[in-house]
């Protein structure tokens, strides 16, 4: 690549067809910007999606792209990554695609640690099918399929990922340019499965479902941007912090004015802290919550393969088998 590409170079000629004001627009821009910032080679980058609003994503990114079937993108991305580990493979999915119909594939991609980046656009609703409750919808969500309110407990994407053995879990908010940029770059750099939950606002069917912590006015008090090795501070002038209460074995918010030493320092390798941060309601934890580097699946696959998938013998060398005989 002779000249450095910009975000615009990652846009296709296709007209973007999400609803006006959809959070997906901001995510698309953040991804195109991140690709430019990390110097991604479009020829070696592929976006794989399943079905849903989010799944249109590959048509709008000027790299290789494959819009597949509902829930199966992680399985297709696994095959692609095995066939060509050099590729930079991204999976774009939604809460229904990843956690309902495709839950099994997400589980196994995570436990295998396949080198793919999974961007889960979580809007807690089925958008493309016109607003039914999803597996992440909160209890009581009124929708066309649950007019008096849903009765199912939602699944937590973060806890699902941790339980599946993920090695990387991060969170971002669709319109938070800075936070998204950082999370996407960290995900890009990770060798195994990078699982990113993006809070995405569906303005038609579930507007402002995350407003209690995404509203910019109250953001300082409702968002906790974690960084490995740094104390978990938030609020105006970082006046508040997260403390680990050893009596209740739970996280709590403290005033840091005269208790700076009591603030918990983020350790992204600690799965227990990660699990507590995922459940933390106010503030909501954002950024890289958990990262545990480990050999990727494709690396292990090739290391274990006797010839690293190369053809070292001809069929002719072995076709006769252990015992053969000749007929004259």
């Amino acid at each position, binding site marked *: 690549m002779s000249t450095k590409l910009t975000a615009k170079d990652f846009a*296709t000629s*296709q007209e973007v067809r999400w609803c006006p004001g959809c959070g997906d627009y901001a995510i698309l821009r953040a991804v195109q910007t991140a690709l430019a910032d990390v110097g991604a080679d*479009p*020829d*070696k*980058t*592929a976006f*794989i999606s399943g079905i849903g609003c989010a799944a249109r994503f*590959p*048509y709008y990114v*000027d*790299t*290789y*792209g*494959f*819009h*597949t*079937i509902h829930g*199966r993108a992680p*399985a*297709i*991305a*696994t*095959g*692609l*990554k*095995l*066939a*060509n580990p*050099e*590729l930079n493979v991204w999976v774009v999915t939604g809460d229904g695609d990843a956690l309902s119909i495709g839950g*099994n*594939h997400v*589980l*196994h991609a995570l436990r295998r640690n396949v080198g793919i980046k999974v961007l889960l656009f979580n809007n807690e609703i089925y958008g493309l099918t016109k607003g039914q409750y999803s597996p992440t919808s909160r209890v009581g969500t009124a929708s066309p399929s649950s007019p008096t309110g849903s009765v199912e407990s939602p699944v937590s994407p973060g806890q699902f990922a941790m339980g599946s053995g993920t090695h990387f879990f991060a969170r971002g908010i669709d319109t938070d340019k800075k936070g998204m940029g950082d999370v996407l770059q960290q995900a890009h750099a990770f060798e195994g499965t990078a699982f990113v939950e993006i809070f995405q606002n569906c303005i038609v069917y579930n507007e402002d479902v995350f407003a209690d912590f995404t509203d910019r006015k109250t953001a300082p008090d409702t968002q906790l941007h974690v960084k490995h090795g740094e104390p978990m501070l938030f609020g105006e002038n970082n006046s508040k912090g997260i403390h680990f209460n050893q009596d209740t074995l739970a996280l709590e918010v403290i005033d840091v004015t005269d208790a700076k030493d009591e603030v918990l320092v983020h350790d992204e390798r600690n799965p227990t802290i990660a699990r507590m941060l995922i459940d933390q309601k106010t503030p909501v934890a954002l950024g890289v919550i958990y990262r545990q580097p480990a050999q990727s699946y494709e690396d292990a*696959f090739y290391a274990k*393969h*006797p*010839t690293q*998938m*190369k*053809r*070292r*013998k*001809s*069929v*002719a060398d*072995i*076709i*006769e*088998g*252990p*015992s*053969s*005989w*000749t*007929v*004259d």
Partner: protein
Amino acid sequence: MRLAGDSGDGIQLMGSQFAVSTALSGSDFATFPDYPAEIRAPVGTTFGVSAYQINLGGGPITTAGDEPQVLVAFNPAALKVSLPLIAKGALVIVNNDGFTPRNLAKAGYDSDPREDGTLNDYQVVAADISHLNLEAVKEFGLSKSEGGRCKNFYALGMLLWMFDRELGPIEAWINRRLASKPTMRDANIKALHAGHAFGETAELSANISQFDLPKAKMAPGVYRSITGAEALALGLAAAGELADREVMFCSYPITPASPLLHRLVGLQELGVGTFQAEDEIAAICAAIGASYGGMIGVTSSSGPGIALKTEAMGLAVSAELPLVIVNWQRGGPSTGLPTKTEQSDLYQAVYGRNADTPIPVLAASNSGECFDMAIEATRIALRHMTPVILLADGYLSNAAEPWRVPSMSDYDAIETNALPDSDDSPQRRAFSRDETSLGRPWVTPGMPGLVHRIGGLESDSETGHISYDPANHQRMTELRANKVDAVASYIGEQEIEAGPECGDVVVVGWGSTYGPIYQAARKTGASFVHLRHLNPFPSNLGEVLAKFDKILVPEMNNGQLVTLLKDKLCIEPESFTKVTGHPFLIGELVDKIESLRGKAV
């Protein structure tokens, strides 16, 4: 010959070793492993009987045999299950030690069949095989159960004497297989020799003479014994070599498809990779991902698993990616008869998808042919850029037969469609088509300057972009149909397998019923047309069949090929079906042909 006992008796091992010995002696053979779905079914029960049938002789052998003339029964249940299948007058070898009152009761015998006249029509050799075997291996100090495990080799030794076979090759095999367990190795070799000696000495009934088979008249060449799973694995590796691409095999374990996975694991040095997916859907999706990435993606399963894969097949059709899907058919519906053979997934293969989603369908007729069909399936997939279904079945997966080893130089290279030189956008270039095959170039991520998008939404016929244009969908639907029809112009004409070009009866078959149909046609002088391409049919098939008064279609399903022939050729064949989980008998086919001719049977 039929060998039968409990599933833990080592029957399958004994049978396959006898098959090897038959091959080495120069006789032709075909085998039919017949085992229960349970791994270790309760001992002594009729449903736990594991059997191995082998047909051997001097003439060309195409079936595992109609009525066995030798039966080895390790217990009463094995005798009970096998007796209705064997010929009157057959030699029946029973293991006395298996005939305990408890085992007799479990098999549902009120009295001992050895004594109550049940075996009057047979030549019976009753030997204390378990006891004699334990005596023979006593010196090794094995436990009773360890020593007992040698009894299949004791019985094999008896059979090798009866058929005048060398012990050497089997001994060499035991040496290799049990190299790390010297005591068990020596004990098994001792049991083999002791069984052989038992046959030879006066202890065996004097009226049983040695069998001496004439050598088969086989075409010159190098031969080996091969199962369908082995041949298909080698064929996929060969296809990779001919296309100069790696092969990525993605599957989820299922009976009777798993042997292919196990065989391919052993072929990694041929540029083969295997991925055990989390489910059937993930297996085909990973194979599609591998094909998208430039390797030959292959998946394999049996009927229930294939059903789960159908949505993804549609994706491969829509995205125009190559893919090979192998279906080792078994009895159904649902879980059905996992270890029994059926040909009942033909509808599923040809018609079984949502929307207008045509896919080429091939079928292998014997174990060795699985090699050629794997190459043919891959060739079609890469040429037309389409998924291809290759139908095999549970019988082929496990059945061993002698196979004349082909030379790789006899096969043409497998070509892909050239990427046109043009100033068009990468999107257009990726969807440019070969005029005859209608296949597109195989453009894969990583190729410089060819960035484009594909998917399961309807795509524009020229640019591949999403298109909801009504005329375009009409065009694409027709194009997908034409593409599969175009396969017919590459596959050659339908030939007649046996018999004259015109006459009163032609028997039409497909898949593993080849053997009995071939034999029945030869016996009756009827003609035999065997189909290897089921979608599309060879273009002259209608013409070939029109020259006969009657068309008989024997199938191990409820008449699926008949429906297909009616649909595609507007003809009215006579259906003859059998869904017992056992292959057709030559005799019943002969009777059917004769009755069709109006002759009294």
